């Protein structure tokens, strides 16, 4: 199984259309509870394989961080709700995966009511991102997000990334889904 090691701070320059510094800090706040840098995740791909994997669908992701980010992360728990930390941390890991493994993986965001919708405009894909600290809800959350991504208002195909920040083992489910083609040829 292949292993990739990347710094979480790389997401800031890789996605010029998003402000991601705080997401990187929150990811470190969570990951540093599990291990010292780097923190390891088992990534399972479904419905696609990133070109660098040569057809493989699983790999190890080791995420490292700087001392400076670690210092900022220490303050996060005093000011943030755990739920929003997990959400932002998941966005950070997703941004890292797309920046490093998908050539047209630049992300953008829009708002719908009080929540954020992510898009990959170059790939013409919608993107659903979620995270949890409970491994038992990971698969169910992933299924829910698949339904959500396919109901995106543009009718685009979509990616789902669900990250699990567990003390036992970090896991990321990363999948690609195509719209069903209806009988008249439209999707």
């Amino acid at each position: 199984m292949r292993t990739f090691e990347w710094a979480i701070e790389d997401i800031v320059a890789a996605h010029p259309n998003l402000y991601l510094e705080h997401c990187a800090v929150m990811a470190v706040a969570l990951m540093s509870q599990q291990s010292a840098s780097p923190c390891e995740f088992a990534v399972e791909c479904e419905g696609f394989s990133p070109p660098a994997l040569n057809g493989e669908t699983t790999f190890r992701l080791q995420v490292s961080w700087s001392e400076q980010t670690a210092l900022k992360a220490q303050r996060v728990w005093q000011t943030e709700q755990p739920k929003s930390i997990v959400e932002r941390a998941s966005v950070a890991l997703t941004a890292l995966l797309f920046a490093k493994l998908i050539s047209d993986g630049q992300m953008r965001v829009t708002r719908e009511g009080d929540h954020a919708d992510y898009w990959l405009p170059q790939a013409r894909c919608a993107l659903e991102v979620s995270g949890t600290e409970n491994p038992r809800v990971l698969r169910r959350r992933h299924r829910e997000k698949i339904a959500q991504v396919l109901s995106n208002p543009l009718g685009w195909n979509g990616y789902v990334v669900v990250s699990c920040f567990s003390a036992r083992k970090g896991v990321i489910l990363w999948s690609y889904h195509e719209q069903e083609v209806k009988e008249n040829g439209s999707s």
Partner: protein
Amino acid sequence: MGRPKVKPSESALDKMLGEASWLLSHAEALADYGRKEEVLGELQRAAKCEEQVACWLDAAKREKEAGVHRVSAASCYEQLGEYARAVTLLRAALSAPLPDDYQRGVEQQITRCLAQAHKELRRASSRTRCKSVEPDLSGQAAATS
């Protein structure tokens, strides 16, 4: 919190789409840090940017995307308490051919914003009543004294 430079090859529309996205994510980050005043400023800028983007997307015959960005602008205005403006944009968004589920969500958002606009109107009306009553009271007070 500076932003990275955008490549010069990007089209004006792409640049504006990127700008709107950055402002929205920045507003979210500022909200996470509890910097409320700055959140409002950034949301105001994001809303304007999203409105402009929607108009350009219409011109480029990308009506569905225009609808999504109008909803995005409206969501910013809703958060800013500018409900009438949000309703106008949401109604305009409904003119795009969007999926039923999404349309239902937009209609719910219109209902929510109208309810807030109604409350606002009631507050404004009661303020106007108070103001128009005040001179009479002072007049009475002057007459009786």
